[in-house]
């Protein structure tokens, strides 16, 4: 194989794989055209990495709530205590495009304080 051919092959691989991966970026799984606003108590709050999780009742179903990494939430002033214990929390987020009852949260409002998660 010549230098040029083997280099071209390597470049093609290096370009193709990340391009395909980008097409599946995390936010693209959620439909940003459909904004959901839910107010209610959160249950099963998991204050964890790579991102916090919880459950909330919405439209008669239990939805999985996808929050942000712990360090980001705490840096912006959101703590586990604020969203635990059955306090009413307002979530603004986007549902999954594939219809699963899961929403990724853009911002959280609790105790009169709004925290952006994105």
């Amino acid at each position, binding site marked *: 194989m010549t230098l040029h051919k083997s280099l071209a092959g390597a470049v093609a691989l290096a370009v193709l794989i990340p391009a395909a991966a980008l097409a599946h970026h995390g936010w693209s799984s959620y439909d940003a055209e459909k904004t959901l606003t839910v107010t209610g108590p959160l249950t099963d709050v998991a204050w964890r990495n790579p991102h916090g999780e919880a459950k909330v009742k919405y439209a008669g179903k239990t939805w999985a709530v996808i929050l942000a990494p*712990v360090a980001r939430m705490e840096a912006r002033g959101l703590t586990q205590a604020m969203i635990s214990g059955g306090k009413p929390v307002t979530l603004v987020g986007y549902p999954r495009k594939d219809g699963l009852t899961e929403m990724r949260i853009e911002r959280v409002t609790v105790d009169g304080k709004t925290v952006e998660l994105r």
Partner: protein
Amino acid sequence: MEALAAALQASPLGVWARGSDLAYPVANLIHLLGLVMLIGGIGVLDLRLTGAFRRLPVEALWRYLLPIAAAGVCLLVPAGFVMFAADASSLAVSTVFRWKVALIVLALANAGAYHLLWRRRLASWDAAPPLGGRLMAAGSLTLWLVVAALGRWIAYA
């Protein structure tokens, strides 16, 4: 297997990997540094052994790049294990993750076989490059790139 994953997830390591605000992101950074060292080292060596960069001496590249790649693996494995511990139960049943692990085993076996089959022929590599050896080198680079891509894909599958 899945019981083992659940036990790991519930272990102090798993609890720490999830709960600490720094453990996961730092493990992620170390994993990425390891990946850069692995692909940067083995990738250039694989290209050379496939037939590129013929002005560079094979023996010297082998001697200097292989330790960088091996050091990369030594960062990748423990950092990856920390991230695995955080989410072991769901990762253990993830198709993408299982493919990733299988291809890592294949890539390591390929590297081991390469040593056994071709290490002694490196000095005369350019005079009579063995087709099998060149294919294995190309396979090595391909496998590691696919492993890296699958690793990134886990989060989106």
